[in-house]
């Protein structure tokens, strides 16, 4: 830092001669040759630092993209995705609902995936639900058991992870109502009394197609969300096979990859269940 008075004096006296051994101040008006010398010295240093930063940036990029994969993506990226999921989960109250639309806006969405739907379903389809306390002994439910639960209708947007979306009119039963009707979701084998997960509640819900080819994992808060349904109707019609007949999940607070078509088994569990697309590089949380 130069003394401002000294700097001022220099400005007032442009005739002042500069000694070559003097430290040059770039803020002062200098003889042009001195200023040029100072410029090349400063530039050399600046460009060396810039080149170093450039090399560091490229190395950082190379390092990041060559890290060992964690479920299909470099592990540091997976860590950030999980962190994003935790932040989003913490900021998502159950009261935050997916916006509803009018029935006239509902359309049939494109049927995007057939994984888990390729095997012919027998007429003996049944839903096996594994509770938290007795994971070896599922209860077996028929479609009419599900239809006996309170019927919920909603018109929500189905958002595909590919980027398209469609408004759909759904009808089905809440997963939370299933857990309130059968002792499945709590560690002490009680009926669920509130959709707000607590220390007793299972941490995850796993859903699987009858052939086990397609499977998803849901955090319990999303599974017990009031708009998370086991659906048996779309747009006023019973489900078509391509949309997951006879029963499918719909989870409007998640991308469509979590809305598993043709549920064969549900499992309440404390271990994070495998998830078909999360194993292939996608975000596990996948929340909207």
């Amino acid at each position, binding site marked *: 830092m130069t003394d401002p008075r000294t700097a001022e004096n220099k400005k007032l006296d442009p005739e002042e001669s500069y000694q070559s051994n003097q430290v040059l101040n770039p803020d002062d008006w200098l003889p042009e040759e001195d200023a040029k010398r100072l410029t090349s010295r400063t530039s050399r240093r*600046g460009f060396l630092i810039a080149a170093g930063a450039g090399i560091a940036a490229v190395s950082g990029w190379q390092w990041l993209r060559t890290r060992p994969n964690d479920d299909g993506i470099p592990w540091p990226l997976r860590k950030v995705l999980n962190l994003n999921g935790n932040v989003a989960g913490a900021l998502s109250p159950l009261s935050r609902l997916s916006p509803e639309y009018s029935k006239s806006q509902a359309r049939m969405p494109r049927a995007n995936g057939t994984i888990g739907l390729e095997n012919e379903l027998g007429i003996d389809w049944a839903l096996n639900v594994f509770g938290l306390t007795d994971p070896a002994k599922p209860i077996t439910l028929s479609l009419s058991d599900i239809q006996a639960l309170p019927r919920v209708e909603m018109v929500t947007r189905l958002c595909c992870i590919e980027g398209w979306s469609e408004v759909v009119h759904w009808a089905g039963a809440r997963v939370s109502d299933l857990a309130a009707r059968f002792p499945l979701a709590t560690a002490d084998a009680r009926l669920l009394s509130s959709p707000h997960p607590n220390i007793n509640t299972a941490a995850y819900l796993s859903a699987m197609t009858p052939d086990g080819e397609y499977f998803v994992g849901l955090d319990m808060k999303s599974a017990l969300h009031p708009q998370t349904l086991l659906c048996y109707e779309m747009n006023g019609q019973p489900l078509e096979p391509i949309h997951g007949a006879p029963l499918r999940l719909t989870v409007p607070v998640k991308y469509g990859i979590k809305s598993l078509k043709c549920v064969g088994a549900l499992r309440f569990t404390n271990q994070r269940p495998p998830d078909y697309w999360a194993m292939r590089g996608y975000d596990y949380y996948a929340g909207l």
Partner: protein
Amino acid sequence: MVVARTLLSGHSRLSRLVLSPNPQKAKPMKARLQRKHPLIVRLSHWLNVPVLAIMIWSGLLIYWANDVYRIQFGSVVLFKFFPEKFYDLLHLDHRLAEGMAWHFAFMWLFALNGLVYVGYTLVSGEWRYLLPNRQTLAEAFHVVLHDLHLTKKPLPPRKFNGAQRLAYTGVILMGLGSLVTGLAIYKPVQVSWLTNLLGGYEAARLEHFALTIGYVLFILIHLAQVVKAGWNNFRAMIIGREFIRESEPNWNQPAVPEASHD
């Protein structure tokens, strides 16, 4: 002819010596390396290069999975975003998961960088050079005419002229727009009020895409202007200072307070 041109150019040492009535008593030419871009502005500016590159690239990986936008009149498609060749050439196809992973990791850096830059310009007073003011619109018009060689009236000596003020303020607003529209399509349930405000999920996705096209256009014009403005100007974005002669028009002539710089 060459001699005549040299004589006319006001800044050459030769012309001074020749034109000066008494060469022996001519004052020595003075120059300095004048402060221009504060360190934080330079860091933030250059960090944008890798961050924007990764955000635009990963955005394309995501967009590929539902590449529905096109410019069309009636049934005549003028341009499809994007032709298959474009994806093939840059290997952008079938990489949605990868694109989302990069996009949702580097969005933090993009947001943080913008926050630091805006915060710094506000606190340091640098905003005075950047925000449009009453003269900006007229001046920007003048700059455009000047750049198109439609007027010879010289540009006023300014750190950032009217066109630059509009462009640099505009691109910050675009950045904010990208954050807002991005959040609206990233969390359309959690921030459904915002998604609705932007015209809905589908509209917000289009807005997010259009802003990216806007960046690309900005970058192209920016690069052309940097080339046109020359080496001294470019170097200032690296070393922070520009070489300037005392005799040249200077935006910093009535000295600005030192405190506003690094």
